[in-house]
């Protein structure tokens, strides 16, 4: 129970469904004030109190579990390390994979519980993860990394309900968090300044900014400040010869070279993804036509996915823009999640850049 409206309502629904429910709030920082404070966070004293009060109202026992070490190692350090090698991680996905449905679930099972119930917006049907009915809140993308075994011990009671109805239900149940603002941003970056956070952790690691022909256009203090598809904040001074905006097309971690170029250079047609997890189908032996989502709340694209050894190759039927390494490629059949893998390489449609 994060202290928000979703997990509180999910807990209440689990009780209504006849389960014996215990509320658990995760302490994710050993020094709570060092993470986000104020209206929102996973791990502030105010959130812990909100979660406790919700548990009181629902009438369930409540405990705080200290996951600070695991969270720091598996989510915060992973986040920094991924940026350091030029990828763009999704820490919420990693927290689901390593904390909520791993460290917490393992401990819960050992202590005699059967499942972890959360306020995520997603549905599980016959062991297969599906999108939530509320498309604006759907969180299947950040849960698709879960294995079948993890899903078999997961409960998402809110997946069949639009968020606006969840808030109304929370108010009806007398939960004070009914109108608490939604969470945004990365919970462990207190001021929302990801670039500053990375600079504090990674320091200055200067490199060059080049165009697609290799001409040096400028310098930077750290490639981690750039994300593929980024247009603003390049500080190149002079405009491109063709006068068109320039975008970050690629980040090369070893030489710390950031390549920029025209928008067409972002048009990705083929994706390589590592460590696939298949939960909605058996690992396909043959190429399979399906849909793929390439970032949280991003568009879905028609594609053909085919296994390639331990990895997965995804051929998009039409180019997609702004595909960053480190993000998940989640395959869907309609609303059903087939599987998920981590994007490790991309090929552009125009062959301007290969990264």
């Amino acid at each position, binding site marked *: 129970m994060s202290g928000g409206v979703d997990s509180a309502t999910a807990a209440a629904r689990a009780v209504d469904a006849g389960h014996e429910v215990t509320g658990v709030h995760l302490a994710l920082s050993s020094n709570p004030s060092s993470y986000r404070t104020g209206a929102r966070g996973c791990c502030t004293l105010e959130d*812990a109190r909100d979660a406790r009060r919700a548990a009181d109202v629902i009438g369930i026992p409540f405990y*705080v*579990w200290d996951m600070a070490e695991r969270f720091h190692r598996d989510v915060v350090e992973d986040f920094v390390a991924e940026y350091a090698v030029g990828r763009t991680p999704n820490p919420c996905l990693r927290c689901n994979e390593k904390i909520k449905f791993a460290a917490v679930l393992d401990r819960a099972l*050992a202590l005699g*519980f059967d499942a972890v119930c959360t306020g995520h917006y997603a549905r599980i049907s016959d062991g297969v993860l599906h999108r939530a009915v509320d498309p604006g809140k759907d969180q299947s993308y950040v849960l698709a990394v879960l294995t079948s075994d993890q899903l078999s011990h997961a409960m998402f009671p809110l997946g069949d309900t639009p968020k606006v109805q969840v808030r109304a239900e929370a108010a009806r149940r007398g939960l004070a968090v009914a109108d608490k603002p939604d969470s945004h941003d990365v919970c462990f970056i207190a001021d929302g300044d990801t670039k500053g956070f990375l600079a504090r952790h990674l320091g200055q690691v200067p490199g060059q900014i080049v165009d697609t022909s290799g001409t040096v256009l400028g310098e930077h203090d750290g490639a981690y400040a750039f994300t593929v598809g980024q247009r603003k904040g390049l500080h190149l001074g002079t405009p491109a010869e063709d006068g068109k905006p320039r975008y970050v097309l690629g980040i090369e971690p070893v030489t710390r070279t950031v390549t920029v170029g025209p928008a067409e250079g972002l048009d990705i047609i083929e994706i390589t993804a590592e460590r696939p997890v298949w939960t909605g189908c058996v690992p396909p032996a043959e190429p399979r036509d399906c849909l793929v989502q390439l970032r949280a709340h991003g568009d879905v694209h028609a594609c053909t996915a085919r296994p390639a050894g331990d990895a997965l190759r995804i051929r998009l039927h039409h180019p997609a823009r702004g595909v960053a390494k480190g993000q998940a490629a989640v395959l869907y059949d309609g609303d059903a999640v087939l599987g998920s893998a981590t994007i490790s390489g991309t090929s552009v449609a125009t062959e301007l850049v290969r990264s």
Partner: protein
Amino acid sequence: MSSHNTSPVYLDHAATTPMRPEAIAAMTEELARLGNPSSLHAAGRRARRVVEESREQLAEVFGARPSEIVFTSGGTEADNLAVKGLYWARHQGSRRRVLTTSVEHHAVLDSVRWLSEAQGADAVWLGVDSGGVVRPEALRVAIDQASDQVAMVSVMWANNEVGTVNPVSELAAVAHEYGVPFHTDAVQAAAQLPVDFAASGADALTVTGHKLGGPVGVGALILGRGVAPVPVLHGGGQERDIRSGTLDTPAIRAFAVAAAECARCRVDEAARLAELRDDLIHQVLAAVPDAVLNGSPPGPDRLPGNAHFSFPGCEGDALLMLLDANGIACSTGSACTAGVAEPSHVLLAMGADDSRARGSLRFSLGHTSTKHDVDALGLVIGEAVDRARRAAAR
């Protein structure tokens, strides 16, 4: 998880103990009455009489003169007043050293830390032996290093976590050889041991109501007449001008009634609790042979109602949750504001490593404890430990 199927078993009397019926009756009666004890009219005089009779009653229980009882809002305030007030009163010139132990309650520990961080005090932390006892020789050595610079000494009478009882009168005598004021936090000792202020030799002594069957929110600093700490709270000048604030007549009355009742039964009760406690230790060790009893062995150096164990391979908070689900209330020791169990600073000071400190639980008995409570724990502790070990092994 199994659910509550029997009456709740309360083994956390060191956190707070049920109010005694006599105290509830006295408090309820007094709540319906009018009067500020500082007022000059009849209603005020009536309330003042209740306060003064209560003061006399408490003075008798704790071997003090009535004028030595300074009412406070509880143990934390009394500790703050003693530590900060005596430091402020004495630090002029070169007296900046504050001697205390590394096993104090946070009310003393954090007051000393604050004096050190914000007020220029020089904190000296006395170590303890593996049982948690502060040796008078250790105090002597620490004072001797710079005896003219010591502002005050604070050593707890009995430890709130492991129940270890310190040789308070010997410690006070050492401090007095050097003319240094000596404070002791007797919050845990007061319910179960004969706490006699005059005989202890202490200059300041903390007690609180809710650990001996009185209400939460009232306590006292017992202060020798020549001892004048600088006040923490300024205002109307109540309590010898040392602790301002309207006196809480109903709470003070109930505190005194509870303390008197506690004193009346103390000898028999201590023997009864020690017997129950020994049974508890026996049953826990029978169910979990590798559990380690922390603190001094049962006897005069240990509170009769305290049993404190480390369960190797367990996390204390997981074990607490499993016992809670079985209707058994106990404690992991100190908890931080967010509710996260920190490794006990007391066990760490006694030489335990981090995992042993984290894997520990306190069971504390009090005036409502029965053999049924102990047996209920004995019945489930083995399985709970097995399960907590499986959880920790993951």
